[in-house]
């Protein structure tokens, strides 16, 4: 039995942040019902990335919404809202990521749901919090990355702002919501009380940078400076970074410079008996020039036995061929109700030695209406 098997989650959220949280809960055993607008459904269904359409809908949607049911209902109609409330009355968790005010207007605020379900755990994700001057701004990942200064940590000094190439703030907010919901469910299990759990993309982006923001606050407001080349962390000295080799790349996470000079047979590096932070650009330049002279494996063969933290730099194709990846069993195949099947990743958490997979693919819009109505509404 999966750990969350008895839990019912009713999820109004769209796009990535909220649905990534409910995916985690689904994988851990909860039953997740997506509430979608008839006709169009979750906007993510038509949010195409890389032009990849799978079975008529976006690859992103299929990735984030597998292992869920879909209930299409127009809850702006009063009769439909009453029906929906019957479902909400039985839910352990109700969650959404509408902008502040939307759920209040339709009569499904925390207080409204609590009135019909006193022990409900109600979760919400906003862009910038329920109050405050930014509350009506769009909570979009790239805008949040840009606003919270995340873009100045990646790339090299002269590159300008470099965003992280995936929706990291959405995923963090989703991860934090899942944590808040689970913590509140634990309190409910032990004390029989419900909860309102709120996270925002803004706070999640701050939390992600807790080390660097705390450094900024306590270092006289010094801004991060990325290295001129091979940057991997604005706050770390040489050699921390990725270097080009004759046939690929090498990631180098640490190593005393004189030791590296010896191991790599790099005369020029011996100029740096001390690894001074101010000299990191110079050291990296010397290292970069030297590492280009041989293939990646050549360097790995020297550095790994000496316990220097280093590795190859792989793409998906190369990674999937590695034994170290294969043993993880990280890829699963799921199938939709119409038989369309696709491959995707699995839950990253293992409990009691069990990896959590599920064959259930993403739902077609409204595919579970009949069953849900019978089970929760016409009963």
């Amino acid at each position, binding site marked *: 039995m999966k750990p969350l098997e008895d839990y019912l989650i009713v999820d109004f959220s769209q796009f990535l942040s909220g649905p990534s949280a409910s995916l985690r809960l689904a994988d851990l055993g909860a039953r997740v019902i997506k509430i979608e607008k008839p006709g169009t459904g979750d906007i993510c269904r038509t949010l195409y990335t890389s032009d990849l359409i799978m079975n008529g809908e976006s690859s992103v949607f299929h*990735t984030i919404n597998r292992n869920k049911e879909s209930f299409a209902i127009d809850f702006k109609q009063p009769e439909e809202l009453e029906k929906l409330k019957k479902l909400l009355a039985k839910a352990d968790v109700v969650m959404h990521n509408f902008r502040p005010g939307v759920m209040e207007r339709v009569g499904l605020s925390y207080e409204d749901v609590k009135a019909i379900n006193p022990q409900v755990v109600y979760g919400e994700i906003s862009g910038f919090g329920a109050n405050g001057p930014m509350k009506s701004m769009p909570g979009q990942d*790239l805008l949040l990355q840009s606003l919270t200064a995340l873009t100045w940590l990646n790339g090299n000094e002269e590159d300008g*702002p470099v*965003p992280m190439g995936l929706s990291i703030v959405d995923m963090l907010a989703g991860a934090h919501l899942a944590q808040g919901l689970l*913590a509140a469910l634990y309190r409910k299990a032990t004390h029989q009380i419900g909860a309102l759990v709120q996270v925002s993309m803004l706070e999640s982006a701050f939390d992600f940078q807790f080390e660097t*923001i705390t450094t900024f606050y306590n270092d006289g407001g010094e801004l991060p400076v990325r290295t001129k080349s091979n940057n991997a962390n604005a706050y770390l000295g040489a050699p921390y970074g990725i270097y080009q080799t004759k046939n690929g790349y090498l990631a180098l996470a640490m190593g005393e410079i004189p030791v590296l000079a010896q191991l790599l047979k790099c005369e020029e590096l011996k100029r740096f008996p001390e690894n001074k932070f101010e000299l990191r650009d110079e050291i990296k330049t010397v290292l970069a020039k030297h590492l280009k002279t041989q293939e990646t494996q050549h360097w790995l063969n020297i550095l790994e036995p000496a316990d220097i933290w280093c590795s190859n730099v792989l*793409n998906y194709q190369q990674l999937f061929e590695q034994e170290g990846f294969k043993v993880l069993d990280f890829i699963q195949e799921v199938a939709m109700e119409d038989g369309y099947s696709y491959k*995707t990743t699995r839950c990253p958490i293992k409990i009691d030695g069990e990896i959590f997979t599920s064959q259930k693919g993403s739902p077609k819009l409204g595919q579970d209406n009949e069953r849900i109505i019978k089970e929760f509404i016409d009963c």
Partner: protein
Amino acid sequence: MRPLEGLVVLEFCQFLAGPSAGLKLADLGARVIKIERPLKGEACRQLSIKDLFVDESSLLFHTINRNKESFAADLKNPDDVALVKKLIAKADVMTHNFRSGVMEKIGLTYQDALAINPKIIYGMVTGYGSKGPWARKPGQDLLVQSLSGLTWLSGRKSQGPVPFGLSVADIMCGNHLVQGVLTALLKRAKTGKGVLVEVSLLESVLDIQFEAITSYLNDGGIIQERGDVEGSAHAFLSAPYGVYKTKDSFIALAMGDLLFIGELLGLDFSAYQDKQTWFIKRDEIRTLLSEKLLTENTPHWLKLLGDKGVWCGEVLDYTTLDALDFAMPLKQQIKLEDTELTTTRCPIQLDREILTSEKSAPKVGEHNKILLNFLND
């Protein structure tokens, strides 16, 4: 009432992944006790960024380990191990990120812990899981990023691999450990039995790539290339998505109706009526956008585009960010003996309450005395 009040967590973890999980559990109400070697303590105490120290320990350590207690114990000394076992008997959760074999040697594996406390939740963090040829590799953030394919998603094609500039694998793994431990608490509430939770840096950093990996798996194994002009911000997204230079600074443009944006900017985008071109010809389109956006300052564009509902925004740094009103409620002050430090706070709000805590990181063994009394209760 904080949700984890009354729970005791023993943290044998070092550095970032495990301790960041401990911090979240502490902010959610748990009593988190670091088990550290006497005198030197956890290794992160000596790991500093920019050589910033608060007392004998680095600012970094203080950031990750506030709101915790410390019990100093030498795990090579049988007397100390006996005390730690007594603590385990009273704890709800223990976490560690030792390499395989270490807890076996000390005698504190999951099976050992269960024998002491049949209801213990035992959380383990590894780099790459416990099987296969990578199980013994150092679980270090940059290396995990590099192996996982993550470095090909940011920046431009000609930049080569571009890692995330902070320890994203560690932090996500910490988040997943919290999720796992909380799920285990729910499981234990039903079964009354101990639970083993395992997470790894590699699986965690693969999890955040679930969209990109799923696309790769279902798109005939095509490795998606990043764009190679200014503005490229995401290997899988069409123009205009990206960050562009303006006359005075930068502007971020999220996904939006390119034709409408072109109209507002006075650009002729008639060649891009077909939405597919927004992806296929994104470099060309981004070049046109870049040239135009360079001609005026950011506030001009934000007004022009933002007023019409286009998703756009400023690109701030820590100084300009900190000057904004909303930054204030996101910080908290931590009090120490003779100083104070400013840090971030828990990103989760509960029952409209912000979860802060003034408690600073402990000194090594600061709570031995209190905890010895606790053992005798």
